[in-house]
């Protein structure tokens, strides 16, 4: 469902990514490992369309993302270090804003359901600015329940989450994968990812190589 062909990226003179090839199918989770500055975040930014791809191809659900970025953004959701939340709005208002920007027509009870599901029902009507980092992260992840994307891009999803939050996130991701979604995540936390069926990849010197299960991914 996701296909990357020869993806390259550079910042000025520095080559960050040099020819990334990757295929991810429905129900699959690919985890990217790599040192800081190895280009994990850049790769996710390219996949989220935040950065424009100059060299290489990216297909999502058979859409050529380089051409039809707006259409592709409908089908993917990116959750990174930033939660993209507005402090002066309540969780319900934040989710409503998100839903409207995505063109989702959702009732308020549906929004509250999602907030309940991430365990924030007691704070559903308080401005987000008083929330802890963990609560913000949960709220950011609650969007995934609303958006039902085809592809979920996660940058260090476990950071700021406590043990309970990690268990809850993994349960949610498992359900998501079973329902046919695909996940690409950057992490340096193999223990927490262990609860998910996944394919680990290693990113170094701008090249991607599969780690544990050789033969299944294409040679890089």
């Amino acid at each position, binding site marked *: 469902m996701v296909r990357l062909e020869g993806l390259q990226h550079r*910042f*000025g*003179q*520095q080559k*960050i990514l040099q020819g990334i090839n990757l295929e991810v199918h429905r129900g699959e989770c690919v985890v990217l490992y790599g*040192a800081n*500055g190895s280009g994990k975040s850049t790769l996710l930014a390219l996949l989220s369309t935040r950065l424009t791809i*100059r060299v290489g191809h990216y297909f999502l659900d058979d859409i050529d993302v380089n051409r039809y970025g707006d259409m592709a953004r409908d089908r993917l959701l990116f959750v990174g270090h930033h939660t993209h939340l507005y402090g002066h709005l309540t969780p319900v208002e934040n989710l409503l804003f998100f839903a409207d920007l995505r063109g989702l027509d959702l009732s308020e009870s549906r929004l509250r359901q999602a907030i309940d599901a991430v365990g924030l029902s007691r704070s559903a009507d308080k401005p987000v600015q008083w929330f802890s980092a963990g609560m913000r992260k949960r709220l950011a992840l609650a969007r995934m329940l609303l958006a039902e994307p085809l592809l979920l891009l996660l940058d260090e999803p476990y950071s700021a989450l406590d043990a309970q939050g990690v268990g809850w996130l993994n349960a949610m991701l498992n359900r998501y994968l079973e329902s046919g979604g695909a996940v690409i995540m950057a992490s340096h936390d193999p223990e927490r990812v262990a609860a998910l069926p996944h394919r680990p990849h290693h990113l170094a010197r701008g090249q991607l190589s599969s780690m544990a299960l050789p033969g299944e991914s294409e040679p890089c």
Partner: protein
Amino acid sequence: MNILKKIQLPLGLLTLISLAVGAWYVYQAPADFQQGGAVRILYVHVPSAKMALLSYLFLTVASVLYLWKRWEGADIVAEAATAVGAAFTALTLASGAIWGKPMWGTWWAWDARLTSMLVLLIIYKGLMVLRHSLDDPVKGARATAILAIIGGVDLPIIHYSVVWWRTLHQPPSLTAAENSSVHISGPLLPPLLILSGAFILLGLYMVTVKARQIEARRRLDALEAARMHPDE
């Protein structure tokens, strides 16, 4: 950018020769019976005013090319043209003031041309400041290119609004004085043409030198960045 290195010397010599010829003509030209010797300032003022605008045109084209094709060379030329254009604009204002003092009796008048030139100088300055106030050089280059294009669209609007403003409001004496600056004819014309050509060469030469300097500085910055972060 290699081409810049090749053309720099011949272009410089050509500029020097044409400036010398132009200067000799100006020296030979008769003083204006109305304006006296002060008229000679116009030989600098008029060509530099032309160059101030021509540089902006150049800058706009380079900016469009940079946004469209993402050639770094176009961005370097745009940055160089900004500095050169600002220099010519400043020269225009200064020579205008020096000419204005004996002719109008004041250093400055809010006449349409001078006002537009002053606004142009601020726009050039804004472009220079914007480029260097963004930490990411690529973002700075893109933002500057977009601003340059917007300024390019704005300049005619600024010019016409100032002209309307001055003509609908101005005491007529200044408008007449303003007109006297364009009525150059007869024996005054050849040196003006030669100097206009010389200033175009001078502008190109300045852009060449400045572009090479900018390119060298960027390469140094890249080397410095690579030295600081050898892993990336």
